[in-house]
């Protein structure tokens, strides 16, 4: 076990302890955030590291939820989550195929199309998805034991989030992880370095899809319902907002962004109830969300993780993990706000 994996493990243990103490509502918020964070990390690998913009994240989550729901109802136990991951990974490869021919903007529009086609399929394939009425999902079974409390799901989601985080930090350090970054920066250079660009992209889609499927499966089990409306374009936008608000390419950023985007509506809900403005609430919630995305992108484009970096928290965490200071990384912090495009 490396030192840098110590921090997430300790955080996970703390999160489990806190969520068990906070009662049902606290546990509910914890698993919502943890599941969103798994999905955000999956998108971060694809978009933040490999540079492939994906507007079909909600479709991948949906494939995961429907697969997990059907397998779980058929009594597949833990394997239903695994099946969800595999199904979404296959769907992600399918969505990624145009990436072999298209780049940047054109590919982004292709994923937009994929999102709408999947949304249609969720409604259309009634024998599997139960169409517009949605698929009812039984509570998840873990090795024969039924999980039916929010606390149970909170613990499960945090454990899976921890595994995701450890896997992501590991893959970032492998040759494949570095190849992702080169492909993001410049595909011609990547080819010149002997990187197989199509293969690298396909791996990014495969891995990203797998984790999106896990997150989607967990969503299905916690909501007890997979509904086509729930996996619409709006959800895809939420996930893109998460990784950008958190900070593109940063794992702690994905977690922070997921927490921010999922807790903001809850916070506004509480705020509105306190001041008796319930009827204008949904409009107000959306307004705050849109405004925050815009303001964030204009004033702090590197996201929440950069704000944290400015304070001493990250340095303290680094000292805690006893990482040696890294001149390259420190230099990177002093760079201008935006990397020049091109």
């Amino acid at each position: 076990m490396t030192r840098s994996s110590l921090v997430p493990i300790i955080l996970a243990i703390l999160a489990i302890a806190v969520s068990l103490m906070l009662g049902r509502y606290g546990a509910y918020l914890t698993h919502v955030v943890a599941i969103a964070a798994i999905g955000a990390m999956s998108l971060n690998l694809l978009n933040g590291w490999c540079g492939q913009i994906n507007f079909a994240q909600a479709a991948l989550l949906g494939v995961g939820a429907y697969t997990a729901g059907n397998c779980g109802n058929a009594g597949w136990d833990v394997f239903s989550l695994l099946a969800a991951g595999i199904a979404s990974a296959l769907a992600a490869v399918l969505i990624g195929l145009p990436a072999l021919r298209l780049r940047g903007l054109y590919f982004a529009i292709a994923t937009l199309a994929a999102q709408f086609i999947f949304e249609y399929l969720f409604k259309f394939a009634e024998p599997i998805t139960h169409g517009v009425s949605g698929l009812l999902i039984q509570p998840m079974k873990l090795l024969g034991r039924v999980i039916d409390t929010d606390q149970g799901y909170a613990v499960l989601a945090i454990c899976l989030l921890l595994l995701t985080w450890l896997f992501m930090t590991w893959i970032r350090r492998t040759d494949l992880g570095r190849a992702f970054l080169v492909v993001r920066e410049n595909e011609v250079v990547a080819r010149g370095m002997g990187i197989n660009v199509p293969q690298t992209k396909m791996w990014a889609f495969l891995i990203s899809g797998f984790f999106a499927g896990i997150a989607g499966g967990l969503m299905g089990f916690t909501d007890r319902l997979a509904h086509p409306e729930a996996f619409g374009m709006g959800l895809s936008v939420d996930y893109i907002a998460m990784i950008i608000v958190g900070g593109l390419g940063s794992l702690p950023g994905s977690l922070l962004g997921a927490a921010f985007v999922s807790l903001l509506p809850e916070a506004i809900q509480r705020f509105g109830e306190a001041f008796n403005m319930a009827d204008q609430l949904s409009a107000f919630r959306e307004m705050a969300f849109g405004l925050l995305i815009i303001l964030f992108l204009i004033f702090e484009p590197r996201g929440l993780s950069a704000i944290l970096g400015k304070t001493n928290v990250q340095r303290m965490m680094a000292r805690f993990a006893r990482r040696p200071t890294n001149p390259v990384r420190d230099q990177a912090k002093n760079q201008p706000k935006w990397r020049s495009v091109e």
Partner: protein
Amino acid sequence: MTFYLQLAVAGIAVGSVYALIAIGIVLIYKCSGVVNFAQGAFVMLGAYFTYALTRLGLAPVAAVLGAMLAMALVGMLTERLVLRPMMKAPVVAIMAVTLGILILTRAVCLAIWGPDQIAFPKLFPDGAVNIFDVFITYNYLAAALLSVCLSLAFLAFYQFTAIGLKQRCAADNTRAALAIGIHTGNQNSLAWSMSAALAGLGGTLLATLNGLSLGLSDIGLVAFPVIVLGGLTSLSGAVVAGLLLGVLQAFTDGILTPWFETFLRAYTRIYSAGALQQVVPYMILVFVLLVRPQGIFGRRGTERL
């Protein structure tokens, strides 16, 4: 035969409005390189402005013109306040910020006008003309004529006037345009305000056909298959592709969907084909991107491998 003609007429009317909206997106993309997902928000906002102005007691013509002016202002403000500070940002950040504008505008409209469908005031008289047994209501006729004429007028403006020439310079090569003394920032603002005004008119016309609700903003995303089909950088391509897609949607709705549903009911347990006409554009989009990414009229792009 009449049935097919009737479908074609409906398709052309809706398609010409698509063209109007798609022109706006292409204009912004050519000039500032921004893919504007907020075009749908402009469409919706334009329709609501027209509605609000007629409620104030303005004549329909004045209301439509007023709404277009207001939309031009909104477009310019969007460019100045949001897009300009982000000029050098990565593509995904700019896409996300336009999505943010879309969400914000929808929420503002929701807060002011509520979630329900609103009866749109009559801009054109009731009734229909009858040409060879094909009935065309004045609404459809006006929508088609207005948007086709305006699209053509705009293309002529872009091609033949001094301002249009400046626009084309700024879009073609920003540095060269700066070097010969064109204020490219102002040209960007102009492009945004023109495209917002066109979108506002498109929204008003769509509202006369389908009624006014928040769902109008979804049309902004339907415009993407249109611009890809036409080639992302071609204004005339957007017009042709808009008409084509409108007709195709109408035919899908009228012919393909019933045929497909009888097939499904005979051979599978699926009962309904759902909103097939809404996904057909996207299926075509994926196909076009894979086979001919530069679209029908676009130049061979640099975005391809």
